[in-house]
Each structure stands twice: as structure tokens, then as C-alpha cells.
């Protein structure tokens, strides 16, 4: 059995677990054809390779279609309230370093009602794996536009088109200085699992945006990225250490425009080889990854997938824990005796 590294406290152990072990006894209740099924199956078959016992794996979700996820995994799980999963997971992770804690959320849950908790868990670099299923629509409440829907989106709540611009989740996460930022697609199991693997290995917050098709309310939102006839032209597959080229025959590439900020897409034939940007996810400054995140056009042309950024930064859990351990080392006697000293501290006096 293949074993991946993981960022939870203890070293992985050889466990004879299979995808079946991670299936719960609950009937899965997403709409037939929903992209969530593919993500669930990919997750169930990926989890065994982490070598983390089921009981030490916890999924925490908020509210929305995606947030049903924990019910279908035979691990510990909490289906919490709208937007708050990162906060609840932070409390769990910081107090239980032995656990592998995952947050499953959606574009509404994470970017609308729970935006504050998302950015703060990322800036703290809490040891959470945050999976944001982005379908650019509100599914559970039956089809209102979401904070990732494109400007002018016509939905039940915006009959003449939405008037607000969308968030770019990758840009947002990078703005919050997330230490691991990646994007993948529900239907590409191999890519999805490779991204999950790298997220699991990352120590600190790992933010993964998963493009997920809501076939009921926003069908085909990412079709150009999936359709074999278009995907090569539209998708930029980021690979650490490799020049960034794409297109059927690598006819497109990413370069630094001279004298300007950011990155641009050009015809490979028109630039010299050393002008092509070599992807480096470990660049300390988030500006490079941010520039990558700005490449997609409105029609999803030039959409990078893969790991944008993976850098080391002290994580909140370890920092809090080391303060706690340092203080605990000073505990000389039994806690009861120390408590007695604490209560007796300051100016005390005796009454006989």
C-alpha cells in the first residue's frame, strides 16, 4: 500500500484500510450527476493512503450541499452551521494536535457568510485542510447567485443579472497569505488526488479550491475545462519546476511582460525558451502566485490548476502548543497543589 506523509501529529502507520472502510452507512443524497459524488469517491479512495487511522481523521463542514460530505465518511465528523466550520475546526485542531482535521465548505459557506473565518484561519496558518467546492451557485437553497458567480449572472434572485463582481478564491486565499493554495477539478480524479496528497502533507493551512459541477442549477460551469476538445486550450497545468506551457502541443506559455507587473500568456513560438516562466510554488512572496491566479479570462481561458503556492511558515497550532508546553514544564507539583498556590497568590491575609 502506498503511504503518503501527513501533517497530523503522529507518524503514519501501516493500516490495512481501503476505500470501503471510509464509507459510512448513510445513503448519499446529492442530486444524481452532482460533482460532489466524484469528489467523495476520490476522497474515500485517497484517505487510506494517508495512513491515518479513521478515528484520528475529522471532517468539519458548514452548511450547503458540499457540507453534507462528513455524513458519508466513516470518520469523526461534524456538520456545523453556515460559515463557521473553520472556527470550530480551529478549536479542535489547536487543542488536539494528534488529529487530521479537514474542513469541507462551498463558495457560499466559505466566501459569503463565513468569509471572515476563512481568511483568519489562513492568516493564522491553522493546521487545517480546507476544501472549497466551488460551483459558483447556491445549490441547497435552489439556485441563487453566489459570491463566485460571474457579474451579470441571471438567477432566481437576480432576474436581470447580478450586479456584484465575484471573488477569485485563489486570489483571496493568497491575499490572506495562505501557505498552501491549490485548485483542482471534480472530474479529474488523478489530479484531484494528487492535490489532496500535497495538501495533506502540508503543515499549516492548505486551501484547495475544487471546481465542482452543480448539474441542477449551474450545469456546465466548468465544461470548457473538462471537454477533451477544449480543455487543453483552456487549462494551465502547474507543475513545480516545469516551464509553464499549455495547449495541445504546448503552443501557449506564461511569461513576465517586460516592464509590467503580473504574468501574461503568449504564443510559445514567439518567445525564447528562457522567457517562459518556470513554476516555483515555493516562492516566498505571494505576488507570483497571485499573478498566476489572475490569468484566467472571463470565459475560463487560461485557468491554472495545480499547486499555486506551498511555503513553510510557522503554524498556529505549533506556536500555541509550544507556549503551552513551555508553561507546563514550569508546573513543578501536582496541578492541585499549583492551583492552591495560584489561589493564594497576591496580597493575602489570615483571619484567626
Amino acid at each position, binding site marked *: 500500500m502506498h503511504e503518503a506523509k501527513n501533517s497530523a501529529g503522529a507518524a503514519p502507520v501501516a493500516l490495512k484500510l481501503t476505500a470501503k472502510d471510509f464509507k459510512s452507512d448513510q445513503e448519499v443524497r446529492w442530486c444524481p450527476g452532482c460533482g460532489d459524488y466524484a469528489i467523495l469517491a476520490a476522497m474515500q479512495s485517497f484517505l487510506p493512503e494517508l495512513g491515518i487511522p479513521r478515528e484520528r481523521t475529522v471532517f468539519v463542514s458548514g452548511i450547503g450541499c458540499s457540507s453534507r460530505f462528513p455524513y458519508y465518511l466513516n470518520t469523526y465528523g461534524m456538520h456545523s452551521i453556515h460559515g463557521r466550520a473553520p472556527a470550530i475546526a480551529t478549536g479542535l485542531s489547536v487543542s488536539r494536535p494528534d488529529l487530521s482535521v479537514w474542513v469541507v465548505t462551498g463558495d457560499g459557506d466559505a466566501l459569503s457568510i463565513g468569509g471572515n473565518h476563512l481568511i483568519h484561519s489562513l492568516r493564522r496558518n491553522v493546521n487545517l485542510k480546507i476544501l472549497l467546492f466551488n460551483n459558483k451557485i447556491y445549490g441547497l437553497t435552489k439556485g441563487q447567485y453566489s459570491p463566485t458567480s460571474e457579474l451579470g449572472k441571471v438567477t432566481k434572485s437576480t432576474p436581470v443579472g447580478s450586479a456584484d463582481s465575484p471573488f477569485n478564491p485563489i486570489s483571496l486565499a493568497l491575499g490572506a497569505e495562505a501557505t498552501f493554495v491549490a485548485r483542482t477539478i471534480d472530474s479529474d480524479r488523478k489530479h484531484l488526488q494528487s492535490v489532496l496528497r500535497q495538501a495533506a502533507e502540508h503543515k499549516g493551512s492548505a486551501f484547495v479550491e475544487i471546481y465542482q459541477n452543480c448539474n441542477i442549477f449551474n450545469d456546465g460551469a466548468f465544461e470548457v475545462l473538462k471537454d477533451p476538445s477544449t480543455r487543453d486550450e483552456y487549462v494551465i497545468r502547474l507543475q513545480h519546476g516545469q516551464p509553464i506551457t499549455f495547449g495541445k502541443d504546448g503552443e501557449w506559455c506564461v511569461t513576465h511582460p517586460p516592464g509590467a507587473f503580473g504574468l501574461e500568456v503568449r504564443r510559445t513560438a514567439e518567445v525564447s525558451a528562457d522567457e517562459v516562466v518556470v513554476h516555483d510554488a515555493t516562492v516566498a512572496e505571494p505576488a507570483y502566485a497571485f499573478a498566476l491566479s489572475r490569468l484566467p479570462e472571463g470565459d475560463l481561458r487560461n485557468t491554472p490548476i495545480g499547486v499555486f503556492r506551498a511555503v513553510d511558515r510557522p503554524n498556529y497550532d505549533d506556536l500555541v502548543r509550544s507556549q503551552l508546553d513551555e508553561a507546563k514544564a514550569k508546573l513543578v507539583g501536582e496541578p492541585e497543589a499549583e492551583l*492552591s498556590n495560584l489561589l493564594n497568590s497576591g496580597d493575602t*491575609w489570615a*483571619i484567626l
Partner: protein
Amino acid sequence: MTKQVRQLDRVVIRFAGDSGDGMQLTGDRFTSETAQLGNDISTLPNFPAEIRAPAGTLPGVSSFQVHFADFDILTPGDTPDVLVAMNPAALKANLGDLRPGADIIVNTDEFTKRNLAKVGYADDPLEDGSLDGYALHPVALTSMTVRALENFEISKKDAERAKNMFALGLLSWMYSRPSESTLRFLERKFAARPEVAAANVAAFKAGFNFGETTEDFVVRYEVKPAKMPAGEYRNITGNTALALGVVAAGVRAKLPVLLGAYPITPASDILHELSKHKKFGVTTVQAEDEIAAIGVALGASYGGALGVTSTSGPGVALKSETISLAVALELPLLIIDVQRAGPSTGMPTKTEQADLAMALHGRHGEAPVAIIAPRSPADCFDAALEAARIALTYRTPVILLSDGYIANGSEPWRLPAVAELPDLRVEFASEPNGPEGQFLPYLRDPATLARPWAVPGTPGLEHRIGGLEKADKTGDISYDPANHDFMVRTRAARIEGIEVPDVEVDDPDGDARVLVLGWGSTYGPIGAACRSLRQRGLPVAQAHLRHLNPMPRNLGAVLKAYDRVVIPEMNLGQLAGVIRSKYLIDAIAYNQVRGLPFTAAELESMLEEVVKNA
């Protein structure tokens, strides 16, 4: 000259000055000296809402009141006997509260034309005769302090700032307070600046000697120690006592504690205090907002810690959805609400007890939680332990309702023996409990109706919980009508079934026909009023609720044993409404929402009417 020494049984002193004058520190030190002497004490600080309001203005006045006596006292006192006024603003803001004939010590250096004008004094009150009804002591506090410190190598500013120690020295002389603890304190506080330490000590001594030598002060007072139960004591504020109670709860439960909090007046000191006690396994997370603060606490509880969140009313409003989640998850959680005057931002530094209705009903759906309230600063320690007991035993959120009055006020606290504190140990689920070897997360303990606490990491007990309605026993998602009805009733029964001690009635002669019922911080003023009435031969009974949900089992019988029940509250009758509807008692609500605690005197005159007409 030899001074007369006069015995007093009680004194109320108020130190008042600009918020930069160090009045809180001065009051604190005087309190500490007084505690050393064995007097009973009760204190009440009063801060301006602004951190640094313009100097010398009325909104900038900060004060600290201390009441000490040779008998046990219940309140910081209604009317000060002594006012120390560091400037005209302090005089103007506090004069109306003094008893006739009170001593007023003023810092004459600050009574300049400009300062007088700032607070709207057309004439100098020290000269115009308007203070004739008081014993006025004009003292040039600033200039005498500066002169006393001439030979110290410190800045003029540091010298001027030591004037509060001059004042403290003078008061310490006047009331024959032992000064050792203050001198030790000054050396500790200014350890890094020995010259400043020495200057403050010198200022203190100069003030003390000034009292001894000046002819303006002819009498020195003594207040003998109070007869209090034997033991070791310290003076403590409600917020500190609450924080220590939370630490103690963790130790006695043998559980780590995680406090999630967002800074808010007047609860922030709980966060500050708890952040010092990491060695007891206390983690504090200063969260991004109130909702995250309770979220992290709940996440920690889920993981097997004692999750705690501390806040004030506006914070509880934001936390309400998460409290409902905790109700559904049936996990232990402690929510501390240090109430302040609302609605909205209201008066953050002023006290009120108007969050009871929110604690009882402020959630969507049928979402009952346990509610308890401390009655005094030191009582906050026991209340925290009791709240933790209920949360851990019954796996429920518990709201603890403190308020700004007891949070910042202080009183002597007899230190408990740790071994005698309640044993709060809990058992986590470790094995499947179902008939077929499966784990049933909602299979209840028949005695407490609590469900198993199965923490992540326990092999074989993997399960999913959430905010969706759960099927009895299995915890699976359920929309079944009968199941929902059953679960709603069961959650309510679990709270209703919490074992709480009977309410005790204080009715010394047993012949009272009027009962005063209170909860929370009104205990002191109600008790003082009742005592005073009894001394005047008017019988009155007092009962005070610690448990507001569920209420003590004997409460109905207690209420029905009296002809009249009076309920004074710092709200518009929130407990009174509950009592009326629950026990069908025609209770008299007596209400005040002025941001200030009741005075014993006003309660006394109100109760006198009721008792006489009963």
C-alpha cells in the same frame, strides 16, 4: 501635636480624579492595606467610557470607591463619607453623592481659573461658600509632592504623577492603615526604575507625615477588624474570581480548558487573566470575532476539552446560533456573559442585568440551556465551578450571567481548600454502547439524560453529529415528526432535570410576610436593605437565586409562603415576568436601569412601604 483618635464602625471613601491620575491604583492600594487590617471590604471602580477623555473634563473623571467596616458588609456603600478630589471635575462629578458633612480633600493646585471654567464653575467652590456643609480640606497635593521629591533624579512629570501616592499616604494616616504592603508594591511595580520607586515611596511618606503634622487634620480614625470566619483571605474582583474558577474547573475535571474570546468591555479581563495560566493546560484563543470565539470553544469541547467563551451582551447575541448548535450537539460549553447596559453598544462601562431574557429565550427553536448567576465578586469563583459541573455532567451549554458591577467590584475572598472543591471528573465514552456492537451517540444516561461524550481519536466510535435533527439513539439525520417532537421534549427534560440545590431563605425571626427575591449582583444591596429594615423591627425575608434555569425545586413553595413577593432588578422586570408566568404569583417588580447598582437606601425605603402595607 497629638491627634485625637476616634473609632468608627464603617467608612466609605471615594478617590476621584482624571483618568490619568492613577485613582484606580490608589484605591486598589488603599483596599489592600485595609484588607491587611482585617476589615470587611467592598469596592466599586467607575471608569470613564473613553480611554483618555480630555484632561480635566467631566467625562474624563475616574473614581474608585471603597467601603470598609468592622462588621460584614454587602455593598460598596451608598454615600461616601470621604471624597478625595484631584481636580474640579472630580469634585463636581461626585459632590452630589456625598453624605452631608462628608470630608472633602481637594488638590488645590488644580483649582485654576482655566480648570474651573472647563467644568462650568463660575466661581471657585473652595471659596464661594458652596461647600460649607462639608468638612473641606484644601491640600496643595501636586506642589507639595513636587517639593518633597526635589532631590530625586526624576522628571518633573514623574514627580507630579506621584501625587496620588501623596494622597494615599495622607489617607493611610487618616485611617491608620498599615503601609508595608504599599511600600513593597511600589518597589515591585517600579523595579526597573529604582529612582521612581524611591520617589513614590517618598511621596507616600510625605503624605503620611503631612497628616501627622498639619493642623488641618485634627482627628485620626480607626476601624477595628471585622469578625469574619477564620481562614486565609485575599481581595478579589469578580472577573478575576471567574477566571480562577475556570482554571480550577479544568484542574478538578482533569481536562484542558480552551477559552475563545473577542475583546469586549467589561469581560476582557477574563481573557487577560486566563491567558496567564497556560501551565494549567489553559489555552486562550483571541478569535477574529464573537462567533469564531464560541466556535473555537465548541470545537475544543468536541475534542474533549472544557470549552469556554467570555463576552458581554452584544457578543452573546452574535453567539446565539452557535449556542443553538451546541444545544443540538449536546456538548459541554460555558458561555460567560458579563452584562452591561444595552441595547446595542449602550453604556459599555455601566452595569445592568437585562440579558436574562436573552439567556432564557434568545435562540431560534426550542433551545433551552442552563443559566446561573453569581451574586458577588468572590462568588464568581464558585459560580464558575458550578457552571462547569452542569455543563460537564449534562453535556449542555451553560450561560453564566455576571455583570459589570461584580466584574470590577471586589471583596475579601476566603480561599477555599482545593481538595474540597467539587470533583468534576468526567468519563469519555470508550466502547460501543449499542446492542449490536455499534456506537449510538444519542443513547442517553437514564439519570441525567446526557449523551456519551465520544471524542475524536477513540477507535470504534467514529460518528457524525451536526445541527440537523437527529434520530433518537443513532444520531442519524431524521425528519420524522414523532422523533422531532421526542427530541425537542427530551432536550428540554434534560435541562429541566438538572439537579440544583434548593433556594435558601433568610428570614431570621421567621415572621416575615414579605419576601424579596433577587438574582445576580443585586444580592448586596438587597441584603443590606433587609438587614437595616430588620434592625428597625420590620421583618422581611430574602431569597436569592443562583440557578435561573432550571430554578430550584422548592422555589414555588417558598414564594407561596409569603403574602408579598418583591423582585428588584436592574432591568424592566425580566425575572419578575418569569416568576409571574411560572408560579402564577402576583410579584411586585421594582426596576431601575440607570447603569448603576441599587443603593441599599432606596431599596430600604421601597421595601419599607411594602412591609408596612402587607
